[in-house]
């Protein structure tokens, strides 16, 4: 009886695991097959080197670079905001804050990541952009800067929380060694704890970057829909994710070349996050055993 129960549970668990693996394979399959028909019509060279992306216009160009530039630009701004803030919060919580404070603040911060992104998107468009325009008058209504900033705020907890975990797991003996030499808390944090927690901190940054690259709603709402190969954060741009949404919501014919562009863009997005995830996996693996 008991054995039978175990067997059933085991089977159910295995099915669950199988479903998620199959879903991943399915997604990859669709991406690859749809984009392979795309690449039979557009050369990979054009896709990677053409500096314009205008699949929906009469004069079609299929260069992914403008979309990648848009994605990178918003992601870069987000990281510039999130990294120093997140790391400072992590160090503060770990080195200075009383235990109780840490217990309360950490989950509170994580709430930031739970706010629906559509809220962030309209916050960027209706609050941050008008506010910034007071100081930067020639900033466009749609731009990379304000969604970048807002996205940065959203990913702060990814960095602060994971980095704090990494700092926390630095052996107490190293901390004491540093204090024992006459180091202050700040010196200990920067000269011993942060270097010793580098792998964990790096992983947190990579996860935050992945999150920012894949973020859709905020940029779709506030960054615009104009693929443009630029590093200027004040003008409308378009990210890979925004483009996919734009086409999916539009009325392109299924199976047409225009329709297939979203899978080509999807592949580019997938490649970006796939590489990042693997780097983070590699770093985790490589440094894991060091202090155990």
């Amino acid at each position, binding site marked *: 009886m008991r054995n039978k129960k175990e067997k059933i549970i085991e089977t159910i668990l295995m099915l669950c695991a199988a479903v998620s693996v199959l879903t991943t394979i399915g997604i990859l399959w669709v991406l690859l097959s749809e984009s392979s028909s795309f690449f039979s019509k557009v050369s990979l060279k054009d896709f990677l080197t053409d500096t314009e992306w205008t699949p929906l216009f009469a004069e079609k160009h299929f260069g992914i670079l403008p979309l990648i530039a848009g994605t990178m630009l918003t992601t870069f701004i987000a990281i510039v905001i999130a990294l120093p803030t997140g790391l400072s919060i992590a160090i503060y919580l770990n080195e200075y804050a009383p235990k109780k404070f840490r217990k309360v603040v950490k989950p509170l911060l994580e709430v930031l990541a739970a706010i629906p992104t559509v809220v962030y998107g309209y916050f960027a468009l209706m609050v941050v952009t008008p506010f910034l325009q007071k100081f930067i008058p020639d900033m466009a209504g749609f731009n990379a800067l304000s969604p970048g900033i807002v996205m940065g705020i959203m990913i702060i907890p990814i960095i602060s929380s994971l980095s704090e975990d990494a700092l926390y797991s630095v052996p107490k003996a190293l901390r*004491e*060694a540093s204090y*024992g*030499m*006459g*180091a*202050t808390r700040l*010196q200990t944090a920067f*000269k011993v704890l942060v*270097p010793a927690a580098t792998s964990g901190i790096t992983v947190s940054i990579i996860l935050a970057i992945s999150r920012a690259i894949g973020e859709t709603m905020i940029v779709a709402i506030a960054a615009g829909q104009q693929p443009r190969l630029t590093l200027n954060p004040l003008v409308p741009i378009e990210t890979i994710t925004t483009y996919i949404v734009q086409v999916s919501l539009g009325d392109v014919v299924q199976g047409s070349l225009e329709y297939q562009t979203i899978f080509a863009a999807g592949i580019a997005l997938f490649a970006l996050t796939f590489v990042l995830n693997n780097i983070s996996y590699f770093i985790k693996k490589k440094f894991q055993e060091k202090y155990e």
Partner: protein
Amino acid sequence: MAKLDAEKVNVYYGDHHIIKDVNLSIQENTVTAFIGPSGCGKSTFLRLLNRMNDYIENFKKTGDILIDGGDIYDKKVRVEDLRKRVGMVFQKPNPFPKSIYENVVYGLRIQGIKDKSKLDAVVENSLKKVALWGEVKDKLQQSALALSGGQQQRLCIARTLAVEPTIILMDEPASALDPISSAKIEDLISELKENFTIIIVTHNMQQASRVSDKTAFFYLGELVEFGDTDQIFTKPVKELTQNYITGRFG
């Protein structure tokens, strides 16, 4: 004047009374051993002397601890300055995950000393004092974590010497080491005595009798007996001490 004076010292962790009314006076350039059964408060007392207990929540101390006549818990004392004068070596070797060189100069770097020739000289000097120079002089830039346990512990001592403390606290510095490395640490302690005041916590009675001039026997947070090591190990005054050193408990 004594190098270090403890006057009516009590320590509490919350409601727990850990150190009870301890009076102790330690002379310059001597080695003092703290012995006693596990949990009797040796480490707690040792860590009072460089204020390492300050970070523990619920920690409370009464009484005074004077070094060179000055109260080290006085508000005007910067705890960082105190720790430059009172160095500490821990039970498990705890080198930083940095190069051998950077480990030795850590204390100087945080004091803002950048002069390369000065740092080089300190590295050589400190490593020579702990008899590690010959073994590592060709691989100063390699990670300290690659050294053996005994070498790591000597490196940790060198790192402490580099900031020129006058007192060195050692909490069971050889207990995690093999007998040969342990013997090297003991030799080292006898040499360092010339220039430093050393206080060592140890579980090992033979070690205490070999390296120390004075011995303090703690039991349940009280300092039961304190005197010349010879006297403590041959004719202790208290019966409790007698029982402990003859191995009847502990």
